[in-house]
């Protein structure tokens, strides 16, 4: 990591970023045993390194002067109230989720109902056409005939039955 034989450095700032990382990790107790022993041996010989370590350690201690704040008296209570509201919302949301299959079934039923209703109406139209087939077939003749009364008179005179008898 560093030149273990040198006793002083000039300038002090010449310490590399890797050395800084090692010193900080050492202060944080994050170095393994071997690295720790190696660094401690170097610290014994290197005044600049010792100075850097002290400075970093002082900076660390200065963070203790940062203001500490405490939670307000009702923090726990209001947080628990929020949790209760959240639970209620969850249960409302869950009941909404439980209704989904019912909603889907109702939708399917409505679609099927619509389908059969339209088919029935279509069949009804067809049935009317079948019933009136005889009229439709002779519609041109009926048009020539003019009115129902006139046709009934002709029928009474046996005009239509005569034709059928000839056949």
């Amino acid at each position, binding site marked *: 990591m560093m030149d273990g034989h040198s006793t002083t450095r000039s300038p002090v700032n010449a310490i590399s*970023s890797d050395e*800084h990382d090692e010193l900080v990790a050492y202060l*944080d107790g994050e170095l393994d045993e071997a690295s720790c022993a190696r660094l401690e041996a170097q610290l014994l010989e290197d005044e600049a390194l010792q100075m850097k370590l002290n400075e970093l350690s002082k900076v660390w201690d200065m963070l203790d002067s940062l203001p500490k704040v405490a939670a307000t008296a009702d923090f726990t209570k*209001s*947080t*628990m109230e*929020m949790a209760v509201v959240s639970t209620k919302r969850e249960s409302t949301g869950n009941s909404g989720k439980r209704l989904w299959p019912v909603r889907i079934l109702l939708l399917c039923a409505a679609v099927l109902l619509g389908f059969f209703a339209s088919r029935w109406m279509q069949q009804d139209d067809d049935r009317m056409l079948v019933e009136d087939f005889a009229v439709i077939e002779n519609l041109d003749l009926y048009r020539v005939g003019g009115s129902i009364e006139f046709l009934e008179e002709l029928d009474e005179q046996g005009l239509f039955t005569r034709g059928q008898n000839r056949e």
Partner: protein
Amino acid sequence: MSGKKRPKKNYVETDPDVRLMLEVREDSAAAFEELVSRYQTRLINVLNHLVNKRDLAEDLAQEVFMRVYRSRKRYEPGAKFSTWLFTIANNVASNARRSLSRRKEVNVMSRSSGELRAYPLATMAEAASGLMPTRQLDKLERAEIVRLAMETLNERQRMALLLSKFEGMSYQDIADSMDLSVPAIKSLLSRARVNLKSVLEPYMSAGNISMKSPVPEESELSEAKELAE
């Protein structure tokens, strides 16, 4: 959770807060209340140092707890409870800071909030210039200097430093919380301390104050490069 997966049994056995969270998963209100009670002050302090506004820190802490509560049914003990909690806190604080900076209020708020506004930068600059009689700075001033020095750190450096200093988290736990690698955390913490030292050095040596400019751009760039790698 991000990071290396460790056997879940370990956390259930070794971390009582994980056991409490498992009770919360089973809808125990008492267990949730206990967790809130245990972590509220720690969480508010970390968030307060991140956003520099006490009221906002409390609101964010509540948001963190609510996220914990809302995700209770999906909770699996893949890390220490505190690691998981501070992962959420990190995300919540990042979002809050982003929205604050979008509204361009962050500087106004950080200067006008808190009990320490009697010590503005101008006063400190005067002290540093030697116009004020040389004296030992009082506790509040010292706290304000350190707070301002903290503000010169970027968001990641500050979070890592706070978790290391005030939560006593290991590099591995910080890495898990911040979704970074252990070497990245090592580098982040080293740079944070070096940057803090460069800002606080004049005060440390002479008892006077001299606030340097924020973290050098070059340092930021090389850090971003390392994190990207």
